[in-house]
């Protein structure tokens, strides 16, 4: 049985990675998950310098989902290079580094610093709704997305995956812009912007007022967008948004995703990603499917 897939020339042993920001640097979850059993570990967004992130509360539970406004707190790319990447290499994990920045220059600095590092793929986060500058501003306008994609692609040594925001009128336009600018792959969806009000305190639940909605609540929107994008562009897609189990992951794969990421589900069960892999295997056995690639985009 073959579970292996390929993203932009990089072979992954199976199609399951982790949602950036929901799996730390991988180290924290290594107590529960053999990192080398994952298709890849996708790390928390990293910038050129350390970021403090937003004030707390940073998370709020919502019905079937959660809001987060962590605000991309990260220790900066130097710490990642010194501490996290060696750890991941030793653990035998394929690595997707998620990159964030305030300006195009910030992004470029990070990808350049990573060029000689044991990093398989670069995921460029232009879709974080929780920071004032950068982030989603690049991800809601096809022209801005085109420009940053082109600029980053020029400097990046590893293949790049532009990560798209769902907070747009037409996800197909965004996907086309990223493809045209040379993105090697796409990942989607990042979180939907949401808000929760504490009616007892009569105040916002998050210090940042708004946050990004993730979890199974958003899965139907994510599957729809992945389907639309896969019907529009030729580059491979990593699908995510609300995957709790193998059935959810298979929806994305059948909609056209070459790989999937397990995000919020890690908070519900730290072993979620591994269970998704096992569940996909059982599905394939039960249905006599020899190669996962038979399932990619099989629903049209």
């Amino acid at each position: 049985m073959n579970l292996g897939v390929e993203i932009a020339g990089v072979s992954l042993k199976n199609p399951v990675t982790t949602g950036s920001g929901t799996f730390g640097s991988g180290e924290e979850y290594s107590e529960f998950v053999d990192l080398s059993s994952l298709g890849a570990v996708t790390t928390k967004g990293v910038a050129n310098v350390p970021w403090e992130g937003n004030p707390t509360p940073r998370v709020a539970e919502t019905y079937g989902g959660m809001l987060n406004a962590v605000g991309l707190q990260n220790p900066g790319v130097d710490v990642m290079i010194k501490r996290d990447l060696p750890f991941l290499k030793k653990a035998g994990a394929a690595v997707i580094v998620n990159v964030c920045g305030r300006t195009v220059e910030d992004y470029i600095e990070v990808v350049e610093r990573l060029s000689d590092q044991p990093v398989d793929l670069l995921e460029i986060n232009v879709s974080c709704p929780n920071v004032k500058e950068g982030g989603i501003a690049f991800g809601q306008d096809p022209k801005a997305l085109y420009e940053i994609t082109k600029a980053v692609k020029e400097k990046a040594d590893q293949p790049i995956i532009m990560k798209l925001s769902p907070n747009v009128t037409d996800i197909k336009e965004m996907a086309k812009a990223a493809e045209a600018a040379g993105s090697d792959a796409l990942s989607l969806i990042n979180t939907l912007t949401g808000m929760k009000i504490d009616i007892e305190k009569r105040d916002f639940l998050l210090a940042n007022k708004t946050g990004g909605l993730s979890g199974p609540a958003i899965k139907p929107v994510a599957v729809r967008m992945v389907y639309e994008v896969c019907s529009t562009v030729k580059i491979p897609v990593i699908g995510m948004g609300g995957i709790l189990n193998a059935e959810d992951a298979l929806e994305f794969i059948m909609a056209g995703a070459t790989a999937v990421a397990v995000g919020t589900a890690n908070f519900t069960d730290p072993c979620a990603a591994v269970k998704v892999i096992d569940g996909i295997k059982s599905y394939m056995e039960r249905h006599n499917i020899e190669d996962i690639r038979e399932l990619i985009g099989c629903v049209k």
Partner: protein
Amino acid sequence: MGKHNIKAEIVSQKKLSTDIFDMTLNVGDMAKEALPGQFVSVYVNDGSKLLPRPISICGIDAKHKTVRIVYRIAGKGTELLSTYEAGTRLNVLGPLGNGFNMKNEKAILIGGGIGIPPMLELAKQLKCEKTIVLGYRNQDTFLKEEFEAYGEVLVSTEDGSVGTKGNVIDAVREQAREGSVIYACGPTPMLKGVKAYAEEMGLEAQISLEERMACGIGACLACVCKSKEVDGHTHVRNKRVCKDGPVFDAKEVEF
């Protein structure tokens, strides 16, 4: 030693006081690794609620493989939890966090409100001389008698119905008990008072903080508190309550 991700069976559950419940969970090997001041992430059995409820460990029984938690109904999740009967199984992750750094020095244990439960196992395990100060809203006290087995217990109530009228610091001052380490858990204003008092008296204070969590294991950076210095892990002035805490030296954190 490590964290356990298990299906735990409720051994018993009873109501302690208005909205306060006392639950014992069979957690297998987790019990023998748990420390006073650590907590568990409890998942409630309803699909609409994905995140864990962090609840402090109030009692540890390694022999019977159980931990005890005492919790207040604060919202929909704890409300649901309070309806479960013995035999119900829950996903539980733990033990989490660092726990108190137990010293063999004269101690003052301070618990306020729903910050009282974690002090019980600490009181039990601390072998030194100690004063225990418990702050309640009113005469609806809980766990007080159990604490009496481990040391002298002072009580404060907001309405003055039991013990000192006022807060726990008022009780400590009024009764002028001494100690060289304070261990405290309770609402933020109380912990601020504890921090100020410890500074004033030149005492060490270990305080247990609370923050909204998602992962509970240090990965998501939801639960940070402000640290005085740049933190060695995060490389910014944030510490993770779930992993670097929940217990901090009061001097290290700003809140």
